C-alpha cells in the first residue's frame, strides 16, 4: 500500500492525488453481494471461510444489492435466472464491478452444446470486469481474480468516469 509507508516529515499532513485516495479506499473494502448459484458458490463459501480468508482483503458478504459494490456471479446462469440478474444489476449503485467466476458464467461451461436452458456466458446480459476460469476455480484462483480487480480499480480515474 503505497500511501502509508512513506515517511511523513510534517507529522499529520498527507498529500495525495484525489484519484489515488479514492481508488485506495474503494479497492480495500469491496463489499460483495452474496450471490451463489451452483457449485462455484461452494468454492466461494470456502474462500470466505477460515482457510483462505476473504475478509483480510476487506471483502464482506452483504445481503442486498443496494449495499454492495461487487457481485460475484458464481455458477451456471439459466435463462429463467438471467432476467432476475439483470434486475439485481440495475439495483446496485455506482461504482459497481462484476466478477464472473467459473466456466459456466464465462461462456456456458460444459453445457454449451446441448443446454437449451443455459445462457452461454453472463456477458450476454451484463458487462463483466474480471473473468475467473476453472470448473470450479480453486480458492486461490478466485483470490487472484480479486487482486486483478483491485489492479483495475487502482488504475481508474474520476475524470474518465465522468466524461
Amino acid at each position, binding site marked *: 500500500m503505497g500511501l502509508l509507508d512513506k515517511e511523513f516529515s510534517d507529522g499529520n499532513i498527507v498529500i495525495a492525488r484525489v484519484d489515488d485516495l479514492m481508488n485506495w479506499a474503494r479497492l480495500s473494502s469491496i463489499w460483495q*453481494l*452474496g*450471490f*451463489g*448459484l*451452483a*457449485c462455484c*458458490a*461452494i*468454492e466461494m*463459501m*470456502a474462500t470466505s*471461510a*477460515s*482457510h483462505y480468508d476473504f475478509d483480510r482483503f476487506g471483502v464482506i*458478504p452483504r*445481503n442486498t*444489492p443496494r449495499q454492495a459494490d461487487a457481485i460475484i456471479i458464481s*455458477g*451456471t446462469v*439459466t435463462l*429463467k*435466472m438471467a432476467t*432476475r440478474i439483470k434486475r*439485481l444489476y440495475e439495483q446496485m449503485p455506482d461504482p459497481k464491478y462484476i466478477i464472473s467466476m467459473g466456466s459456466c458464467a464465462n461462456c456456458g461451461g*460444459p*453445457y454449451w*452444446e*446441448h*443446454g*437449451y*436452458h*443455459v445462457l452461454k456466458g453472463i456477458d450476454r446480459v451484463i458487462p463483466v470486469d474480471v473473468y475467473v476460469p476453472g*470448473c*470450479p476455480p*480453486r480458492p486461490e484462483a478466485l483470490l487472484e481474480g480479486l487482486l486483478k480487480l483491485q489492479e483495475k480499480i487502482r488504475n481508474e480515474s474520476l475524470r474518465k468516469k465522468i466524461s
Partner: protein
Amino acid sequence: MALKTETMVLNMGPQHPSTHGVLRLELEIEGELILSVKPHIGYLHRCFEKHAEAMTYPQVIPYTDRLDYLAAMGNNFGYVVAVEKLLGIQIPERVEYIRIIMAELQRIASHLVAIATNGADIGALTPFLYLFRDREYILSLFEMTCGARMLYNYMWIGGVSHDIHPDFVRKTKEFIIHFRPTIVELNNLLTFNKIFIERTANIGILPIDTAINFGASGPVLRGSGLQFDVRKEDPYSIYNRFDFEIPTGKGLVGTVGDCWDRYYVRVLEMEQSLRIIEQAIDNIPGGDVHSAIPKRIKPPKGTVYSRVENPRGELGYFIISDGNLNPFRVKVRAPSFVNLELMGELCKGHLVADVIAILGSLDIVLGEIDR
C-alpha cells in the same frame, strides 16, 4: 361489523442469503403466521438428461458430478453401479474398498456443510467457520488422490480413475484421530445449545406415514423414526461386510420428527461413517484398479433402476439402453427434489422465521432438484 382483512403474499426470491441456492418460495402469510408455502424451482435447470443422451456412457460421469455438487462421489457411485448392473461385470476387491472409503468420507464432508449452513441460517456463525476448517482436511485427502477438490470424475465404469497415493492410509488415520474430538466440540457448541434447541425443537414435525407417502428418504425419513437405509435394504457394492448402525430420531429434546431430530441424525451418521472407514482402511487388498474397465462400453438392450444412499437421501438412476454407445434415457431420482415437496406440509401454522429452520433441516441442494 367485522374488520376486513387480507392475507399478504411475501416473496422469498431467488436471491436470498439463506435459501441454499436459487429457490423461490412464495409465502402466503397472515401477520407472521404462514398459511401456505409454494416453492418455485427451475432456476438452475441445466439440461442434464439431454446431455446424457448425447454423450457416451463414460462421458456422462463428469455431468453427474455436478448434480449434487456437495456429494459428488455419491453421484458417481450411483451412476457407475447402475451401468455395471446393465453390463453385468465384476469389480475387483480393491476398487470396492476404495469406493466405499471415498463415499463415506464424502458423506462426512457433505454433512459438515449441511450442519454448518443450518447453523449459519439460524444465526450461529461460529460452527460455520470451525466445520469448514475440518472439511478442508477431507478435501485435501481427495485432492491427493485425484487432483480435484470438489468435482472429481473419480469413479469410472469398472474401476476408479487413479489409484490411492502411498500416504493416503496414514493421512486418513490421522484424520480419524483428529475428527472424533471435533464432533464432541460440535455437540458442546451447537447441538445442546439452548438457543438452537429453542429454534428447532417442536418445529416442522413430520409423521412417518406422511413421510413415506411423500417419498421422503435419508435423514428426513430417519428423523421421523423409521430405520430405512438403502445400504442395509438393498445392499450395493460390499456394504454388507461392514458393521454399522442406522441412527433414527427419538425426540430427545422435543417431538419425534422435528427439525432437531433431523439435525441430530446427521451428527450421529458422521460417527457411523467414521466406523465404516476404520473397518475398511486397514484391509484394502492389493491389485490393479484399472483391470476391469472395458474398452468399449455398449450395454445390451434393457432397463435398470438402481439406488444408492447419498448423504441427502436415496439417489436413483433409471437408465434405458438401446444397444448403442449413448444411453437412450437417463432419469435421475434426486432425493432433494422429493424432499422439497414436504415444505408445503411442514410449514403450516408456523412463523416466518421457522421457514428458514425447516428449510435448513431438509438440506436441499438446488443442483440436483433442477438437474
